[in-house]
């Protein structure tokens, strides 16, 4: 149910082919890391999985929903697939707790009390219980990103997508966000994460996918992939990232 | 109501209407030249000048922005003669509308001046430039670029605002219209014709602003390439 199957997906922006026949499989409770150079199509792929971009060919099955070029029922899909962006995109006019409870209340029509309960629980999991009344601009970047994760978790998704959630953060703030994600992974969440943190990918992800020029260039168990990159592109990428 | 529009009688007066349009054009151009100069000077006075001058400019700006142009026009034309300043109708119209535009453009220019980062000004000073050189070479062009849409929007409102000058016998398009109307008694047709001319004039002016913008900012992308997308801040209306 909470698996992701991407089959031969193509995505164009105008004439530019950004995803060129991508296929990836993610089994339930699996954590897959996606790495690759800037512009290789990683973000676009995540956005396609969540229906934020349309695909032009292929098929995506995610948490029991199907996306084809003709599109599917995106709203019910999105209820079960969470996504967290690099720029946290918290709603600035709402408090932390309101940010988290808005979607459960509006989309799932959960009552205020119950939604608040869910919201507090989500905040507890990201370790920010005491910030529930604050506004986004009163939080550090790392705290904002953890709230964004909690906001996504409050919808109780079956799959979560993370797009470079730490790359706008200072090193010291990165740690707290990675910890939150690690806990999620340990709790059995199916996750796809685009990341520049090689160490983190290696340690947390069961499988790593290396994208290049809109294609899946290499994939495999993380330890293997990092330990013995086969293609020169991945070798280059790994070595330049470790510098 | 079966009312038949008859443009014939109105169009017979085309020389008068054309003359009115030309007068509107001239009055607008003069007003814009004078008003923008006033606005620029007042904006610099307010941002860079002594306190008392800044206060004076604030009073001027607020007084003109919070009262209608028509009332300002009456005060200039009928009121100033009481203190010995008498102007012809055309002069009074020019003065009143220019002062009105000046007040609005002061605020626009000021926003532009304030939008230039302080670090830019410091970089200029650090190279040994004088304050005036900094304004002239470093501040003006980028500031103008920022405010260009707002400024040209205000200028459009000024063009339309000149229609009010007919109240004190200044000769322009709207006054030509009322002459035609009084001869023919075809008021609806007259105003439709005039509306079309105003729309034409407005779009012509906008196109001119666009061309001027292309030239002014020729080194970089022009501020708003799409004429339809003009993003004006309708702070003021001439009418």
């Amino acid at each position, binding site marked *: 149910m909470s698996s992701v199957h991407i089959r031969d997906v193509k995505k164009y922006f105008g004439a530019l082919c950004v995803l060129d026949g991508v296929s990836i499989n993610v089994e339930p409770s699996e954590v897959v890391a996606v790495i690759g150079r800037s512009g290789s199509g990683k973000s676009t792929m995540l956005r396609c999985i969540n229906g934020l971009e349309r695909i032009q060919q292929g098929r995506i099955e995610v948490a029991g929903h199907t996306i084809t070029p003709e599109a599917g029922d995106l709203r019910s899909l999105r209820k079960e697939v969470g996504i967290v962006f690099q720029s946290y995109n918290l709603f600035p006019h709402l408090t932390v707790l309101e940010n988290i409870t808005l979607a459960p209340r509006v989309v799932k029509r959960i009552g205020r009390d119950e939604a608040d309960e869910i919201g507090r629980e989500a905040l507890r999991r990201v370790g920010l219980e005491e910030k529930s009344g604050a506004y986004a601009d009163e939080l550090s970047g790392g705290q904002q990103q953890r709230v964004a994760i909690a906001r996504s978790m409050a919808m109780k998704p079956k799959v979560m997508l993370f797009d470079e959630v730490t790359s706008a953060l200072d090193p010291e703030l990165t740690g707290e966000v990675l910890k939150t994600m690690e806990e999620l992974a340990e709790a059995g969440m199916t996750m796809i994460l685009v990341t520049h943190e090689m160490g983190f990918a290696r340690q947390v992800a069961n499988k790593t996918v290396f994208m290049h020029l809109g294609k899946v260039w290499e994939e495999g168990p993380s330890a293997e992939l990092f330990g013995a990159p086969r293609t020169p592109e991945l070798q280059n990428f790994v070595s330049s990232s470790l510098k | *109501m079966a*009312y038949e529009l008859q443009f014939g*009688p109105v169009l017979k007066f085309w020389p008068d209407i054309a003359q009115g349009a030309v007068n509107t054009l001239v009055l607008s151009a003069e007003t814009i030249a004078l008003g923008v100069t006033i606005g620029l000077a007042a904006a610099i006075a307010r941002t860079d000048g002594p306190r008392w001058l800044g206060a004076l400019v604030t009073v001027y700006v607020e007084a003109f922005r919070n009262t209608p142009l028509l009332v300002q026009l009456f005060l200039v*034309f*009928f009121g100033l*003669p*009481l203190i010995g300043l*008498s102007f*012809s*109708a055309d002069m009074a119209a020019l003065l009143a509308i220019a002062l009105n535009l000046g007040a609005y453009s002061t605020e626009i220019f000021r926003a532009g001046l304030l939008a230039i980062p302080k670090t830019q000004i410091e970089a200029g000073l650090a190279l040994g430039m004088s304050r005036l050189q900094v304004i002239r070479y470093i501040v003006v062009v980028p500031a103008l670029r920022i405010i260009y849409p707002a400024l040209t929007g205000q200028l459009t409102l000024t063009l339309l605002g000149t229609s009010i000058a*007919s*109240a*004190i*016998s200044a000769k322009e398009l709207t*006054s030509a219209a*009322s*002459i035609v*109307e*009084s*001869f*023919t*008694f*075809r*008021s*609806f047709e007259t*105003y439709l014709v005039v509306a079309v001319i105003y729309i034409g004039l407005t779009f012509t002016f906008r196109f001119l602003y666009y061309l001027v913008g292309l030239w002014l900012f020729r080194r970089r992308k022009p501020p708003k390439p799409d004429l339809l997308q003009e993003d004006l801040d309708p702070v003021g209306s001439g009418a």
Partner: protein
Amino acid sequence: VTIPEIMEKGTISIGVLTGLPPYDTTDSSGNTDGFLVDLAREVAKSLDVELDVVPVTNASRVAALESGRVDMLIAMTTATPQRARSLLFTNPYGSYQMTIVGPKDAEIRTLADLEGKKISVPKGSTQEATLISYNIPGLQIERFDDDALAMQALLSGQVDATAAVAVLANDLLKKRGVDDQFEVKEDLPLYTLYWSMALRADEWNLHQYLNNLIYYLEVTGVLDDLHKKWTGVPIPGGKLPTF
């Protein structure tokens, strides 16, 4: 509209020119009253219907009539052949002498003396049309929104003379205490002009009725009485013409 239609409706709406004392004054609550309104009352009374006074200006009077907003105009319109192509005019209900008013020390005895002078007139008025028709060389005609502004232009020295209604001018010069500086140039009466009520081009039924009413009001002395009530003098020029 026909007479029966008006009687059935129970109301007649009449456009009345406002802002020209003493023919029309406005009380402190903005209600309009005066010679023209009294006349409108006579029209309504004679038809035994309610009166709806709609204030109009020079610029809006014709549109108000033609758009059907009012049934007729009592708005100081002077019948000219050119205007008669568009509207229907009744026999005159009043008249005024148009005179030239100027500073006492200005030598204005004949039309030729106006040569090269600046003279103010109400925009769209018959004064304007008349002066134009004289073809005086170098005469500059300055058009103002209404009679009062035209007079004001003289008093504040913006023009050399104004073409004004004699009754109005005399009254005003005295009341303002400027009769030692300005005078009506008695040597140069321009015209006696007549005001007609105006109707839409095809309203023959109402037209005939109004002609009848005007005739009746004149011979019974009502017109003169009303005029005297507001201006202090009877309608100038003796018997009103008919056409």
